[in-house]
């Protein structure tokens, strides 16, 4: 354990903590342990990085926040409606802080180990709570710092020193606001729902953050192009419920001297709500701790969830019973395993968004009618790009240790495990995405592209099969630790993505001919059907034949 800079900085406030009756020495010791543990954790925003690196991965990921901070600059520099621009700026800041707070620091707020480890020691509850909040605040300062330092400097040059100080003061309030409101949100969820639901919510926010970051990157590139801030702000009563606007108002009030009822009310809200929230937090902390128990054991009565649809698909797509068992198992794992979802759903989100990103950028140069007659619909192949990545992920599971089951049970044919799993992937993840895209694409490009869409689907199935054959061969699904996800080698994954290109080329070759696309479809269908038979032979297993001899 080393001496942390942040703790040295904290020592400056030692007297303040002591005044509040907090055991500073104990708090510092707790924080040192926590910061050390954090060095061994990988944040969501960086989830592509390899594990087991030295140092605090979080600190090393801060430059990403710095990059995203650049997005704020046009809103600060251009236009002259303070309330409008700064509301947008604070909206973005709050989004980033809130999502990273939930995705990366929930574990801090919700650490149930604290209960067993710390509360059994002779330390006051107040000290433990303070350590928790300070711990989170240290990180929030880092994120905020990385995110706004450059915009802050830009604002100094553009609007002067007063503007910067207002900005700085508000940032402090926003940080407090976000940390405390998130805690209160958890408190609320835990009060009325159970721990499993909370874990689901956190999981979905993590997924949202991962998607948001990539889409944000697209926006960043384009943001200078379409910022048009010649909008005048008009007040409506419901603006009172939108926190970013509270923080836009003080600039209007203090710099533009726009003294109206609403700017005053917003400013008061901006200052008072965080303070009030802290008060609530301090009061509710004990009941929060009590409800945390729910995270440890959750034994409430629950109804059976019906999944007749899965049942139906299992019957339609799988012929052998063993295969159906794996189909249902894989469907459940994909739906319920949070770690799997965290790795896979962002890719799904992107494959849903990317085809449109390209069409939209094209829209700025050409007319809608022009686009709808061309070959632009081929962008739908972007959703096939996700296939290698996700098929690769099917090998892994957070509870991979449970896979002793596959070896201890009399599975007659190992190959049914994967053929069922791949079918579940196609039915549960791939086809729904393709279906949504198809509906919108059919609307844009008219029904003439329907045969092409069928070709895309068959290409997707084909690519799934090729990927499986090349990287998953011979192992059971959901049976390895996620720690090994990087072992496949980037080159191999890239190569497998290129398979999509092969299908696109095939499609392009077929298109110019009369009925060419239909020939292509028949060809693909034959390849997929024969390929599937070859990869997953349905005859009795070799082992069975040998076994009968003994």
């Amino acid at each position, binding site marked *: 354990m080393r001496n942390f800079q942040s703790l040295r900085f904290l020592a400056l406030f030692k007297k303040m903590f002591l005044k509040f009756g907090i055991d500073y020495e104990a708090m510092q010791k707790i924080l040192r342990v926590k910061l050390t543990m954090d060095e061994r954790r990988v944040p969501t925003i960086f989830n592509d990085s390899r594990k087991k690196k030295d140092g605090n991965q979080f600190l090393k990921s801060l430059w990403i926040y710095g990059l995203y901070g650049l997005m704020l600059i046009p809103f600060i520099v251009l236009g002259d409606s303070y309330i409008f621009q700064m509301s947008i700026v604070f909206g973005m800041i709050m989004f980033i802080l809130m999502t990273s707070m939930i995705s990366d620091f929930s574990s801090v707020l919700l650490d149930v180990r604290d209960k067993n480890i710390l509360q059994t020691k002779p330390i006051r509850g107040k000290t433990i709570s303070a350590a928790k909040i300070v711990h989170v605040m240290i990180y929030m300062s880092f994120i905020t710092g990385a995110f706004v330092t450059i915009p802050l400097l830009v604002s100094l040059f553009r609007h002067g020193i007063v503007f910067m100080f207002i900005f700085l003061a508000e940032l402090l309030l926003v940080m407090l606001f976000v940390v405390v409101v998130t805690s209160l949100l958890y408190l609320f969820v835990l009060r009325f729902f159970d*721990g*499993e639901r909370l874990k689901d919510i956190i999981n979905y926010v993590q997924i949202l953050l991962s998607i948001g970051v990539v889409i944000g990157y697209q926006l960043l590139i384009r943001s200078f192009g379409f910022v048009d801030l010649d909008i005048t702000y008009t007040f409506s009563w419901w603006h009172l419920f939108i926190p970013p606007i509270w923080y836009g108002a003080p600039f209007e009030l203090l710099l533009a001297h726009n003294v109206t009822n609403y700017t005053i009310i917003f400013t008061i809200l901006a200052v008072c709500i965080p303070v009030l929230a802290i008060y609530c937090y301090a009061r509710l902390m004990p009941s929060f701790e009590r409800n945390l128990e729910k995270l440890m*054991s*959750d*034994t*409430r*009565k*629950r*109804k*059976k*969830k019906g999944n007749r649809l899965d049942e139906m698909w299992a019957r339609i797509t799988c012929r052998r*019973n*063993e295969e159906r*068992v794996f189909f*249902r*198992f894989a469907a*459940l*794992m994909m739906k*319920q*395993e*949070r770690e799997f979802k965290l790795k896979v759903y962002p890719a799904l989100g992107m494959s849903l968004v990317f085809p449109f990103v390209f069409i939209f950028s094209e829209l700025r140069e050409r007319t809608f009618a022009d686009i709808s007659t061309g070959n632009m619909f081929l962008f739908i192949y972007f959703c096939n790009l996700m296939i290698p990545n996700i098929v690769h992920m099917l090998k892994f*599971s*957070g*509870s991979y*240790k*449970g896979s*002793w*089951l*596959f*070896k*201890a*049970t*009399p*599975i*007659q044919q190992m190959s049914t495990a994967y053929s069922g799993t791949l079918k579940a992937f196609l039915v549960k993840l791939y086809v729904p995405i393709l279906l949504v895209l198809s509906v919108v694409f059919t609307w844009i490009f008219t029904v003439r592209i329907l045969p092409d869409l069928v070709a895309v689907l068959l290409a997707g199935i084909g690519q799934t099969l090729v990927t499986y054959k090349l990287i998953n061969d011979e192992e059971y699904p*959901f049976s390895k630790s996620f720690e090994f996800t990087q072992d496949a080698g980037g080159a191999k994954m890239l190569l497998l993505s290129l398979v999509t290109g092969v299908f696109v080329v095939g499609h392009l070759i077929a298109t110019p001919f009369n009925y060419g696309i239909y020939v292509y479809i028949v060809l693909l269908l034959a390849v997929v059907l024969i390929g599937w038979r070859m990869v997953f032979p349905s005859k009795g297993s*070799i*082992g*069975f034949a*040998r*076994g*009968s*001899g*003994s």
Partner: protein
Amino acid sequence: MGTTNEKILSLRNVTMDYGGKRVLNGVNLEVSKGQIIGYIGPNGAGKSTTVKIMLGLIDNYRGEVEIFGQDIASGDPSYKRKIGYVPENAEAYDNLTASEYLIFTAELYGMNRAHAEDKATKLMKEFELGDVIHTRLSSFSKGMKQKVLIISSLLHDPDLLFLDEPLSGLDANSMMVIQEILLQLAAQGKTIFYSSHIMDLVEKISNRIVLLVKGEIVADGSFKELQEMSEEGTLAEIFNQLTGFTEHKNRAEKFVSIVQEEQAHA
């Protein structure tokens, strides 16, 4: 307990090396129908390895393993159809609900889905877990999860049971229920292979005790026979003697004296 001479499993000269280290060294063992084998030994003696070999989780052993008269190296997994297994550390796909998990395992053993669900629900109720059958295993306590795993090992009515520390995390009442279940199952002709560190329990329920030390069987017989082999009274003491561990008192004394060391005042 009726022990017939029908052979359920036999190990012949089973040897296993793991990373250059010999874990099992020529283990020979024959088990007949209806026996409850207490399989004991110090940590790292090779107990779990033996069980894993018999289940087909490890296949690079040397020697011969026959279960239900079939050489398991043949590659035909159907001998597993009549085997139940409770792993140590309660490892399971715990993002599934109890019912989903139970049905899944039962189906892997070749059971019909509806039948499995019906049976699982009934068994869960018997263990007072009827309310949480549709709750995810990840939120279960150790004891609850252990009960689910015990159910999953019995759902398909196996003839041979491998239990690795099956009572960990269970309360005294549940322990007694499970013990009784095991005794009754054995009386019905089921064979139970039971490994544990809790000597009292092993002493109580096993009708044959096998002691493994450093990959070799050093004692094999009923509790009575083991008592005759050594002068000690309880199984724990016999265990100490046969594993050559006699210094527990010295070690404890030293430990306590360190605990009581005064802090040097600076």
